[in-house]
């Protein structure tokens, strides 16, 4: 995201730095958010190689800060993320930069955004190749070289070992993202399978989960693990209530599927605007696990929260899969998805099964919402954007099949993250949506779907 803009910004600042202060030794920079508005009041601390603090600077009204230095050498510049305005963080996950200062005023920039750059896993500063060239204009600030976006777009010479590590990291973050999509997709696909409804509000059930966890964590003040449980319970309840109060009665009334589809868009809007009303438009973070030190395996750098949420999501998906295959209720669900009338005639209570599907779907979507929010924070439109990827996954896997949805999600998740190796990260969703359209052209029934469904 914004990689070109960022590079441009650095070039400009570099030039102005060279014009301004050749003689003075020091570090300086400008803090700007993603709309290029200056950030005032953020604290930046500079420590020397031995770890002793030299000075703390606070960014001014125009976002600039500077720390004069007395000697050449290697310094660590740390941006205190907690002094940034709510919701902002350093996009490449590196609020701490090691800079080598050689007889000039050195520019240090922190790319700020409301979320971590997709696919970026924070890296160990020690590994970072620091620029040591003496000409400030060419002296790339360390963060550009580490910044995943810039690396992909502008620095092909960094391919090779760094590229491979990045690819592995992207693969893992893709798997993680895929599992998050899968949690939402399984529910969407099961609802479609049993009722035929394409639920456009499913993405907002994901937001709902994130918001409920925010309520438990930030308003009530319980730890995040309690918030996860709270959100899942609330999500399940919300799914149950939706089917009990809205979709069930509509089915009994014999409302057409297209009408129901449009109603679901209305429901999506209701949830989204209610969220906007209560939570506001900015990104909100939980109180725990916001900035986490990553594990560095050399070939892979990953944050513990990603590992744990990913494994948990995988376990849940496997449990749902086993439940569908081996339990009575699971078999009943598949029977209803296959042929509702036939299922009913064998004594299965179809409406009971559909209500269960809605409940589980709501719970899974909420879980996905919390896990995504632990990484990126809660925003009112997060589910809306996820929904399209969920659709892509569900269609890729085969509309109406739970297992297809899982497979499709993993593929789409990995594809979205890996595609940032070649295309600009801001266009990664476009790639996934284009895949959706290509599948429609070539194999509309998806990987695991059956031809007859598409009639």
């Amino acid at each position, binding site marked *: 995201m914004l990689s070109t803009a960022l590079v441009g910004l650095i070039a400009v600042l570099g030039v102005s730095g060279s014009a301004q202060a050749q003689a003075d030794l020091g570090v300086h920079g400008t803090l700007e958010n993603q709309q290029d508005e200056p950030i005032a009041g953020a604290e930046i601390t500079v420590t020397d190689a031995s770890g002793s603090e030299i000075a703390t600077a606070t960014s001014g009204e125009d976002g600039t800060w500077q720390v004069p230095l007395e000697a050449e050498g290697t310094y660590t510049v740390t941006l205190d993320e907690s002094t940034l305005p709510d919701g902002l963080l350093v996009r490449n996950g590196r609020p701490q930069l090691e800079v080598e200062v050689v007889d000039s005023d050195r520019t240090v920039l922190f790319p700020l955004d409301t979320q971590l750059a997709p696919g970026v896993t924070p890296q160990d500063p020690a590994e970072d190749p620091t620029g040591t060239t003496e000409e400030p204009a060419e002296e790339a600030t360390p963060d550009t070289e580490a910044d995943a976006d810039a690396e992909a777009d502008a620095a092909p010479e960094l391919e090779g070992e760094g590229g491979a590590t990045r690819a592995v990291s992207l693969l893992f973050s893709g798997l993680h993202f895929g599992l998050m999509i899968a949690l939402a997709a399984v529910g969407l696909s099961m609802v479609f399978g049993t009722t035929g409804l394409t639920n456009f509000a499913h993405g907002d059930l994901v937001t709902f989960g994130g918001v409920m966890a925010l309520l438990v964590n930030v308003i009530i003040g319980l730890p995040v693990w309690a918030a996860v449980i709270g959100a899942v319970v609330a999500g399940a309840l919300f799914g149950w209530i939706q089917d009990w109060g809205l979709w069930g009665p509509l089915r009994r009334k014999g409302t057409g599927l297209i009408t129901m589809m449009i109603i679901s868009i209305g429901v999506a809007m209701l949830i989204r605007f209610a969220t906007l009303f209560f939570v506001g438009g900015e990104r909100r973070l939980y109180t725990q696990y916001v900035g986490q030190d990553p594990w560095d395996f050399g070939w892979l750098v990953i944050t513990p929260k990603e590992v744990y949420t990913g494994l948990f999501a995988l376990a849940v998906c496997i449990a749902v899969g086993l439940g569908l295959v081996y339990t009575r209720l699971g078999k009943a669900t598949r029977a209803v998805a296959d042929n509702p009338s036939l299922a009913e005639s064998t004594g299965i209570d179809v409406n009971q099964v559909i209500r269960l599907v809605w409940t589980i779907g709501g719970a899974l979507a909420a879980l996905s919402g919390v896990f995504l929010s632990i990484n990126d924070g809660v925003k009112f439109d997060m589910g809306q954007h996820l929904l399209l990827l969920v*659709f892509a996954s569900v269609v890729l896997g085969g509309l109406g099949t739970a297992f297809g949805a899982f497979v499709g999600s993993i593929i789409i998740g990995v594809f979205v993250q890996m595609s940032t190796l070649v295309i600009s990260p801001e*266009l990664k969703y*476009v790639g996934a949506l284009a895949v959706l359209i290509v599948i429609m052209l070539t194999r509309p029934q998806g990987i695991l779907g059956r031809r007859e469904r598409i009639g």
Partner: protein
Amino acid sequence: MDWHFVFSQALTQAIGPTMLVYALGAIGLNLQFGYTGLLNFGQAAFAAAGAYGLALGVVAFDLPFWLSILIGLGAAMVLALLLGIPTLRLRADYLAIVTIAAAEIVRRLARSTVWAEWTGGSDGMRGFSETFFELSPFPKDATWSLGFVSMENGRLTVDLWLVDFQYSNRDLWIMTVGWILVAIFLVILRLLVHSPWGRILRGIREDEEALRSLGKNVFAYKMQALVIGGLIGAVAGFVFALSRANVQPDTFTTDLTFYFYVVLILGGAARLFGPLLGAAIFWFLYNLLSQTLNQAVRADLIPDAMLSTTQIGPLVFFLLGLGMVLLLIYRPQGILGNKRELMLDVR
């Protein structure tokens, strides 16, 4: 509270430029959804194609205004073909998913920084509307009054004592063109849907198989409906872009499409005047609610702790969304609609 102001604003807007955008977008949708049963959830993308075609043509490529209009129409047509070819043979909900995805692709491409030097990224573009406003026959400095109608420095005021209507010079020209376009499209649509071609469209909506057994090329008819509806959507995009004198990618979200649906269903789908009536009522209610709430908050009738001014927008859209859901449940045919005409189903 200044009820005179609230109602004047709401009524002024109810026949104003923005309402015309909704009306035009919904007229296009009416052909696709109301008459043919195509679930196009990407009408915002057609509007974006028109608006961006026009803006890119004038600003980025320095082309004449009218050629840029043609580019906008061409872009909408290409979009319709791209969407229609893969999905029109499939079941209705596939078209819905693909169009909603395509609309998102268009928006994300438009706000991407990759070609921001041409499209302006998320800031969009401006400076393409001069030619259009130069054509305006309304003099900018006219000052006269005639009974209850008066013009002051180009600003028209129609004072009906209970309420008054006020339009700026630019609004007047946009509205003149917009209402003429609405009238033209309504006439065209009327002729189309009462022709044999229109009857086939309605036949497709009711029973595709029956039409196929009569030897009709259902795919071709659906495609024609999609293209024509999309072109009308592009015209809505033109009016939208010109009335605001800028284009911004984030105004073309799925929400815009949904408001087109609200307008269409409120007025009555598959009814000629449904979109027009729906747009007027929708935009009247929107303005009435937001102005009332705004005034109430300012006059401290509603305490600040309960509702702040930034929350009014979401609250109004929440209420309109709720109204929409209730309307679909209890009166899916809308105000003018005929219930028998809208027994749509995909299975």
